């Protein structure tokens, strides 16, 4: 006679392993979908560089890889970003661009697409700021299609154009390509930063919502 306790443990163990296997295969499916859909880089709009914040001639470039639903990205946005803009970007010592790395769910990718729809009307950075200002809990619906459209409305964007852009997934490929680039660049969390001296090619990677002092030290060492 099989011990009842052992039998229950075995059944629960099988159920857990099955659930894990199903989840893993769904993730693998998602990754395959992400990479398969990117057929060719040339399929993406030729203007695939994200909009730059700051002077094009600045000697140092800050590349931020982030997710609009990421709490730590929001922390960096609130605490370190304003001082970096004031002391380095506004003074022409550095410029910055943002690469979407939507790892936290479907709404992350949709929010990223919405920023490019706003960019079509010249308001990429305004929209970027709005997303972080109104960030809610992860996958709570704060960045669903309706909310994203309401953000656009608040920024006085042409709603017909914006809605058509978002609903048609116009920038779906671009966001997936950015995801692939960030992943290939070694990012395994958000936010991840790469600080590059564009003249010498020296670069430094910073992982996490590190305080302003770290960025100040790294950027100054590159100037």
């Amino acid at each position, binding site marked *: 006679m099989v011990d009842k306790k052992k039998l229950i443990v075995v059944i629960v163990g099988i159920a857990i392993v099955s659930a894990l296997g199903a989840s893993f295969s769904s*993730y693998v499916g998602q990754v395959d979908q992400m990479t398969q859909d990117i057929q060719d880089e040339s399929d993406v709009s030729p203007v695939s560089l994200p909009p730059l914040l700051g002077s094009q001639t600045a000697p140092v470039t800050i590349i931020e890889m982030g997710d609009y639903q990421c709490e730590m990205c929001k922390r960096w946005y609130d605490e370190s970003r304003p001082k970096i803009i004031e002391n380095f970007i506004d003074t022409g010592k550095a410029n910055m661009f943002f690469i979407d790395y939507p790892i936290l769910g479907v709404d992350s990718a949709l929010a990223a697409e919405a920023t490019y729809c706003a960019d079509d009307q010249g308001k990429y950075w305004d929209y970027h700021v709005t997303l972080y200002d109104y960030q809610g809990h992860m996958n709570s619906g704060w960045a669903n299609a309706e909310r994203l459209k309401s953000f656009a409305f608040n920024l006085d964007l042409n709603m017909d154009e914006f809605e058509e852009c978002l609903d048609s997934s116009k920038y779906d490929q671009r966001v997936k390509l950015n995801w692939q680039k960030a992943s290939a660049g070694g990012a395994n969390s958000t936010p991840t930063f790469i600080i590059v001296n564009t003249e010498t090619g020296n670069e430094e990677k910073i992982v996490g919502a590190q305080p302003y002092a770290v960025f100040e030290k790294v950027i100054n060492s590159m100037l």
Partner: protein
Amino acid sequence: MLIPLLIISEHLFLEPYIIFSIYPESFVNFSLILILSIFAGIVISMNIFRIRQIKKTNKIGISLFGTIIGASAGACSCGPVGFSIITTFGTAGGIATAFLDMYEIPLRIISIGILIVVFFTSLKSLKNECKIKS
């Protein structure tokens, strides 16, 4: 336990420089991590002592359970730990980390509560069971 939790919660960074940071909004979180680490350290030590002295293991499981809940809470989905969980377990991992992130403070309070209860019961047990019988 304190140092790993501080690293996971992005209060302590090791690269490119060793730096500790705390912001006003994250002060509560930091305080809970500190309290949790202190109690976890005391409770687990007490239970290891109990196991060695009186060969009873009935409280170590609960103390480990409380510690694990407290340690898991706030494993930010966007950090390396959360990212690993999401990439390994897919949708289930994403839901789990989102839950842990959303209810970080209540989960840490619950785990501290568990550890406090275990602390007092372990203390009582050690007082009673370690008496020299005359």
